[in-house]
């Protein structure tokens, strides 16, 4: 029997609510916002990876005609800020710690003058020895990135569940290897930008293309030293986020400081080069040593992970990301005994941070290859190994993660059929191979204080249409459409009768924003609860009008009637007007909240971190040219368990887009550094997949229902970024018997490995 349920709006192929504006050029992105008298801000960035600033002379820049403000750290309160550790400043205080760090800034009447003014700022630099490799950074005597962090250790996690020594002793075979991941940039086609204005009454109004408004407001207020109420963040349309627009950078802060000093609105938009140097915080890169013990029958008996993660110069969200890399995958398979040690290390490079997957792509790159090593060592089909160990509904991980729905085994069946796994394996062609990997992700994560919730307000307009006010972060993924569908389903109105506002910290209630694949699940539940509240108000008024009991009413297609007596009905518009235009009238408006039934992990990181877990499987067939090392992905198949699919076109887009980023991560993307200086900060040398780089793809959603989700839904956004690199490398190994251990998997590395294999 199907687990999925039938709904009238949820699960239907509705069109995106902002679809029209997106195809006409009318969507207002950050660079499209123009305030009267607005100035252009530009930022002077550190050319050195590590240097002391002896002095800064801005006098020549200030005198340039058309310059309205020049700012340095002296124009700030020099209070450090950061998502988890307060370790970065708006503008460098005393020294700079990476190439691209913000040192000073200018606001001028046009971009050419602003650029010219930057050249007139004189900085007296004293270059310092830097440290660029995490292993070297830990050595005694290595230069310190922050004086108060001995051996450059930002975080050290060391814990064991069960008895790891006994578990390895019990194992029939043990596999072990080390895999290194690379920094990956978000490369949203729109860069980070802000437009700020400052009112003499003390209030900052900042337009931002952020995906996490209230987190942005909190961090901006902290760094500026003002109460949160004095900062209003208004979200523009957001041209892609992927974690990069979650406010760990200084763009909006510099913009705000310039606006205050200039007394005029200021716009600061990152160039593409700035975006690579100091905009989005790229994926934390890690060296992961993984050791797995298996029983002869394929069951995993023991797992030990050692992670060394490169934090860069400031820590942003890397502490949480490193924890995820060390632990999240333990919710994918049925593990009993695990040990992990993770070190997060400061270096003089760009701060790393949140990117779709949040540590999981590095972890799955390593662990899913170790599973494949185990399958080959045991002579068991990799698909069978996954099936033997796959998590199921009811599984509780060694870290306390409680799985309330899991269709991982169903996903394995789907992938097996879609790619014709058995027949293709039986009929293996030379230099052609197949690989697969499983993946798990969360639907929200409890780590910003003891809260993983959301809230929403819905008001019914006089014409009967509903408006959702939400402070969550639509950043292109389509969650606004899903929220409109959820509200329409609960209210019993057509989806065309529901609109949703953009987020604005002055007008919408507290929301954490877009991260951790949380919005459909967490904010979907909040919107559903708000709709239930509003529906109750509608029913009470309608009951009076229909001379019935509110409890007997139902609504469908915007009409409210007694169940079974559809002939006599009132419209939502009739009801809204009747409630408003009367003695003691009031508008129909209601709010709803939701906080996931998760637990803030304790000091040993034990505790159910999320309200629900989503699962998936990917498989690939590849061909490797042994003469050139070139990899051609012949086919990819994907099965995803995200519970009920609310907005199918959007959900499919998340799978297809996540996979494209996974393919880039696997095969082409990686910023090259020389002594901390990025060598390829542009789109011609940092290659993200183009339309011609995408393989034929088939994908499908599991029949699934999450009992705690809105209409059975859970998260999806990050799931299909996570395993792709391992999938492709497992397939390459099956094809030619070599395994490249560092990302990206380039033809040069494959050729080298093939040569080494030949001897």
């Amino acid at each position, binding site marked *: 029997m199907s687990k999925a349920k039938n709904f009238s709006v949820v699960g239907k192929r509705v069109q995106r609510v902002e679809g029209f504006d997106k*195809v006409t050029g009318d969507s207002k992105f950050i660079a499209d916002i123009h305030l009267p008298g607005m100035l252009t801000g530009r930022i002077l960035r550190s050319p050195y990876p590590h240097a002391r600033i002896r002095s800064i002379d801005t006098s020549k820049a200030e005198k340039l005609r058309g310059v309205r403000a020049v700012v340095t750290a002296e124009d700030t309160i020099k209070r450090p800020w950061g998502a988890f550790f307060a370790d970065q400043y708006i503008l460098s205080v005393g020294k700079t710690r990476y190439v691209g760090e913000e040192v000073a800034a200018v606001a001028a009447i046009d971009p050419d003058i602003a650029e010219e003014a930057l050249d007139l700022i004189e900085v007296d630099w004293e270059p310092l020895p830097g440290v660029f490799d995490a292993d070297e950074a830990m050595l005694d005597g290595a230069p310190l990135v922050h004086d108060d962090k001995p051996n450059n250790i930002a975080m050290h996690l060391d814990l064991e569940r069960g008895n790891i020594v006994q578990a390895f002793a019990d194992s029939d075979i043990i596999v072990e290897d080390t895999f290194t991941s690379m920094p990956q940039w978000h490369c949203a086609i729109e860069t980070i930008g802000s437009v700020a204005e400052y009112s003499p009454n003390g209030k900052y109004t900042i337009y931002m293309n952020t995906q996490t408004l209230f987190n942005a407001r909190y961090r901006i207020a902290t760094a500026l030293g003002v109460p949160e109420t004095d900062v209003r963040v208004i979200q523009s349309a957001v041209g892609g986020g992927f974690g990069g627009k979650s406010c760990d950078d200084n763009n909006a802060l510099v913009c705000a400081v310039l606006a205050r000093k200039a007394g005029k609105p200021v716009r600061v938009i990152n160039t593409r080069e700035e975006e690579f140097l100091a905009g989005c915080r790229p994926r934390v890169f890690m060296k992961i040593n993984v050791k797995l013990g298996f029983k002869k029958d394929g069951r995993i008996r023991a797992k030990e992970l050692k992670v060394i993660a490169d934090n860069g110069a400031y820590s942003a969200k890397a502490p949480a990301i490193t924890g995820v890399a060390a632990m999240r995958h333990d919710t994918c398979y049925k593990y009993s005994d695990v040990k992990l040690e993770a070190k997060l290390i400061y270096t003089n490079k760009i701060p790393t941070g949140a990117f779709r997957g949040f540590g999981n792509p590095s972890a799955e790159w390593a662990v899913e290859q170790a599973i494949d090593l185990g399958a080959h060592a045991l002579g068991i089909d990799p698909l069978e190994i996954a099936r033997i160990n796959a998590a199921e509904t009811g599984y509780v991980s060694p870290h306390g993660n409680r799985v309330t729905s899991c269709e991982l085994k169903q996903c394995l069946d789907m992938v097996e059929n879609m790619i014709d796994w058995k027949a293709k394996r039986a009929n293996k062609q030379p230099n052609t191979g197949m690989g697969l990997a499983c993946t798990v992700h969360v639907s929200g994560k409890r780590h910003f204080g003891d809260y993983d919730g959301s809230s929403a307000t819905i008001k019914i307009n006089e014409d009967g249409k509903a408006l959702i006010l939400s402070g969550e972060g639509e950043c292109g993924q389509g969650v606004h459409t899903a929220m409109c569908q959820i509200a329409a389903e609960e209210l019993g109105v057509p989806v065309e009768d529901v609109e949703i506002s953009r987020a604005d910290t002055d007008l919408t209630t507290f929301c954490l924003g877009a991260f951790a694949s949380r919005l459909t699940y967490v904010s979907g539940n909040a919107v559903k609860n708000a709709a239930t509240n509003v529906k109750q108000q509608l029913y009470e008024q309608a009951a009076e009008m229909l001379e019935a009991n509110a409890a007997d009413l139902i609504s469908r297609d915007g009409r409210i009637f007694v169940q079974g007596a559809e002939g006599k009905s009132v419209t939502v518009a009739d009801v809204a007007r009747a409630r408003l235009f009367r003695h003691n009238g009031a508008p129909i408006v209601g709010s709803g909240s939701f906080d996931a039934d998760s637990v803030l992990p304790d000091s040993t990181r034990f505790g159910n971190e999320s309200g629900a877990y989503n699962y998936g499987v990917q498989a690939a067939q590849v061909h490797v040219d042994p003469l050139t090392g070139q990899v051609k992905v012949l086919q990819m198949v994907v099965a995803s368990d995200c519970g009920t699919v609310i907005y199918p076109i959007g959900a499919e887009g998340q799978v297809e887009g996540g996979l*494209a980023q996974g393919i880039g991560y696997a095969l082409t993307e990686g910023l090259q550094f020389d002594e901390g200086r990025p060598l390829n900060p542009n789109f011609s040398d940092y290659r993200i997949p183009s339309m011609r780089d995408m393989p034929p793809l088939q994908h499908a959603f599991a029949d699934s229902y999450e009992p705690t989700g809105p209409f059975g839904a859970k998260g999806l956004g990050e799931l299909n970024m996570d395993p792709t690199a391992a999938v492709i490398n497992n397939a390459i190994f099956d094809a030619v018997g070599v395994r490249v251990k560092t990302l990206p998997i380039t033809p040069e590395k494959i050729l080298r490995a093939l040569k080494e294999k030949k001897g």
Partner: protein
Amino acid sequence: MNKKIDFTLNGKAVSRDVPTHRLLLDLLRDEIGATGTKEGCGTGDCGACTVMMNGKPVNSCLILSGELAGADIVTIEGLKIGAELHAVQKAFVQDGGAQCGYCTPGMLMMSKALLDSNNNPSEEEIRYALSGNLCRCTGYAKIVQAVQDAAAMLRSKNP
């Protein structure tokens, strides 16, 4: 150096006194206020700023105002036919060809350029024609579908 530049924008005559080094992209967005055209990289690598110049798609971040004398420029603002969406716009809405929508204006202009010369492109031809337009959200599957559907709409109108 400023120079008076006369050209046609979306069918209307435009005359502007601008520095000759001003990029077409900045001229459109900052001077004329036609902000539908987007900047993604500024180096001609991503295609977000694609517009039609004399019937051919160009990266407007690589065109100087000094090159514009007498040119016929069509931007996303000129893609609609009256109040009606162009077939490729309709198909992008219907098929979910836009996620964040930032690459979309450039992607639509390049798609129009393809469909103007070939109203029945193969998938291979679509992928080749649009390979200079980067999208980080969609994985391109729905864009390919939308261009195919737009081509079918155009063929049914003008068989």
